[in-house]
């Protein structure tokens, strides 16, 4: 373990997290044969939902400096819970995209990676995260020899051998209200909430920010919450953009401006979305549930550019557009 001591100096949390990792796997394990109370796992799901919001990180292509923002968002003991949400979502440390990509998506969802990003060892973090990637598998090597006769211990990487896009199937059909009912019939033993507890991630892009993100709409129940989440997601990125476009000679810490007025057109930016027929709509016109069931992606546009686009907005066609063009 000598090499790890070198790592230890730079990234101490790495080692700390390994035992914790095992712990959370055991704790989160509602798969174990023991009398794990289903309710206890259910009760923690709301925490996990919250954290899925926090971990609603972007698609591939993010570069490391940006992760400082996500690193900051996840602080202190939330890391403990954030590990839970990972386990809950996927049973593996990898994101739902499953595959290891050339980009760094997989690392974004590792709280280890997020924490390490806030330290200066950026180029090495990738490898650490890679190594981290294998540690859950090692956890199983230990129980393996003695568990021949026992039933399954903690969840394991890559088992059962299902490709990632075949997972989370319950959630894709439960995002439509009509099917949720029939789901209850099909799987009586499962709590219906559990199947819909898996996230509904949609991409969100912002004008002027080349890197898109993803948000989990299941984590919110109102437009207001979504709006503040968008603000949190992009505030730092926007500042970083202004920073870099200024040539970087300016002060490093650009003051971050809050992004407000996304829904009523009063702010510099406005939130719009594309539904599954490809139409662009203003966010906020239809009831929240209907919005969640039809939205396919989100965009944060400059309010000044709204008139240039053909928008479809529920009832208040003209009025909505006019108000957004203040």
């Amino acid at each position, binding site marked *: *373990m*000598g*090499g*790890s001591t*070198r790592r230890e100096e730079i990234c101490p949390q790495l080692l700390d997290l390994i035992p914790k990792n095992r712990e959370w796997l055991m704790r989160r394990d*509602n*798969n174990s044969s023991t009398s794990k109370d289903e309710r206890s796992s259910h009760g923690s799901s709301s925490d996990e939902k919250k954290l899925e919001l926090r971990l609603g990180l972007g698609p*591939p292509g993010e570069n490391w400096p940006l992760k400082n923002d996500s690193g900051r968002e996840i602080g202190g003991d939330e890391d403990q819970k954030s590990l839970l949400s990972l386990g809950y979502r996927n*049973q593996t440390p*990898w994101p739902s*995209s*499953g*595959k*290891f990509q*050339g980009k760094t998506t*997989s690392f974004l969802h590792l709280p280890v990676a997020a924490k390490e990003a806030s330290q200066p060892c950026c180029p090495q973090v990738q*490898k650490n995260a*890679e*190594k981290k*990637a*294998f540690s859950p*598998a*090692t956890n199983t*090597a230990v129980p393996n*020899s003695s568990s*021949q*006769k026992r039933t*399954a211990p903690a*969840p*394991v*990487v*890559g*088992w*059962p*051998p*299902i*490709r990632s*896009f*075949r*997972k989370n*199937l319950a959630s*894709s*059909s439960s*995002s*439509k*209200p*009509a*099917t949720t009912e*029939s*789901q209850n019939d*099909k*799987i009586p033993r*499962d709590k219906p909430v559990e199947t819909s507890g898996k996230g509904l991630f949609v*991409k969100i892009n912002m004008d002027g920010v080349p890197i898109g993100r993803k948000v989990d709409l299941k984590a919110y129940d109102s437009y207001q919450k979504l709006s503040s989440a968008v603000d949190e997601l992009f505030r730092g990125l926007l500042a970083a953009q202004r920073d870099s476009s200024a040539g970087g000679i300016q002060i490093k810490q650009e003051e971050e401006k809050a992004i407000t007025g996304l829904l009523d057109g009063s702010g510099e930016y406005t939130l719009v979305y594309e539904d*599954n*027929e*490809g139409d662009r709509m203003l966010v906020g016109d239809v009831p929240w549930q209907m919005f969640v069931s*039809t939205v*396919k*992606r989100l965009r944060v546009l400059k309010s000044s550019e709204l008139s240039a686009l053909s928008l479809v907005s529920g009832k208040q066609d003209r009025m909505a557009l006019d108000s957004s063009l203040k």
Partner: protein
Amino acid sequence: MSEDDDRSPPSDAAATGITASGSGGSTSVELFPAPYPDQVLENVLENVLCFLTSRRDRSAASLVCKSWYRAEALTRSELFIGNCYAVSPRRTTARFTRVRSVSIKGKPRFADFNLMPHNWGAHFAPWVVAMAKAYPWLEKIYLKRMSVTDEDLVLIAESFPNFKELVLVCCDGFGTTGLAVVANKCRQLRVLDLIESEVMDEDVDWIACFPGSHTCLESLIFDCVDCLVNFEALERLVVRSPSLKKLRLNRYVSIGQLYRLMIRAPQLTHLGTGSFSTSDGMIQGEQEADYASAFAACKSLTCLSGFRETLPELLPAIYPVCANLTSLNFSYANINAEQLKPVICHCHKLQTFWALDSICDEGLQAVAATCKELRELRVFPVDAREDIEGPVSEVGLQAISEGCRKLQSILYFCQRMTNAVVIAMSKNCPDLVVFRLCIMGRHRPDHLTGQPMDEGFGAIVMNCKKLTRLAVSGLLTDRAFSYIGQYGKLVRTLSVAFAGDSDNGLKYMLEGCPKLQKLEIRDSPFGDVALHSGLHHYYNMRFLWMSSCKLTHQGCREVARALPRLVVEVMTRNEVDEEDIVDDEIEILYMYRSLEGPRDDVPKIVQIL
């Protein structure tokens, strides 16, 4: 798709050593042969060899003598490379100069389940660069588990004027930008199939990039592309693609949009329905009748898939085509037995059926009752956890074995199983070629008798004489492997997980299965001694994968020393440049024969011994 391995890599070296009568004793293929007396004979040979299509036959022909080797190399137009690292692009393009179609496979299958680092390799780039120069008339590229970049796709589009078919299966690393370039520049493109690949959404409207006039498109499969497509552009594309026979849409296409496409393309034979749901998840009355008529109009439809977000109320729309279907893929349709029955009862000709276990044992019984022609069945879990009750069990499998006697291939995920039913299947379905049973709970015994699942799998290898692919699961002792070694004489692909007691398990497999080519093992107690027992066989295999077993650096190093043409890749948990991990257990062993020796694109975490 045949998993044949033509065994040419190591014998390639041997072939170059064989000198033929009459020609100069050169051992390098690169030298130009001077004109010699039996030139006529060689021309005749070339013309005859053109008719040889099977890889194995061609390989055998190339070993006869030098002139046959040359003639075969000149006449081989379809290239199959089972492991992209077994041979280099340079060597390949030097030997085979008139290739029109290339198939390359990269990562091992366990990479699909997150068991490999993301940057492990299998890059397409060196291949496309070499082929761009060597094969200007290349028409077809088929890639599986390769890393393909947008730049690679651009190079394809720019280098091959006659390019016709691109099929990417389980690939990643590229996005909609690359697709757009291919769509736009490959004017002869007939097939663009993206299957289970990860495609990055680079916000490019690639559908709109197809040429504005008539296209030659025959197959467009993009159900795995997880981004919105421009529907109007797609509709226009379908209209101007009169040869289109296969269309598989992604989940962003609603049933209303599907309808519009279907009425424009009634000639379709393969259809992926997209979401099979309305845009807001609600039904509006009269439209159901319309959908059914659209399906009815597709008289040639034999292969149906999609159903990504199925609204079960809409299923009656497909009734008109059920009677003609030979393939139905419901593996994304979270429907129950009651919703399945009215569909499946019409599907008398069905040969391939994929479904979710939400259909339960009852649904499988319905399948068994109707689908007497069934050849392939796959049952995937809705909920892939280990400890739950599980909606399918041995009951469903029993029904299938009794009803579908012609079954050749099965992949079955379940939570519990019994030996008796597996034995019954081995007797009822003697034509089984592929038997993959995944009891999701690790080390689960027969849930009725408490016995290991040895006898069940033993019966499979014993009674299914055509078996070439086997995946085992559940509680298994070394006995199961002794059965496999004893009876599995045709087995080529073997998947083992959480099984076996000791080194003997692996020994039985390596010593007993002469045709074994792909062996993937995880989390089983096999160590260095067992690894050594296979030294006689590893050159005949495409690869061996062992992860979370009991192997050490030392053991693997000895294998590497004993077999110089084997590339032995290991990955450990710890830092690679660590001094005292010499005898540490390794996490992953992936080894394969190769003509090239260690590759130069190894990520740091991988060590080649």
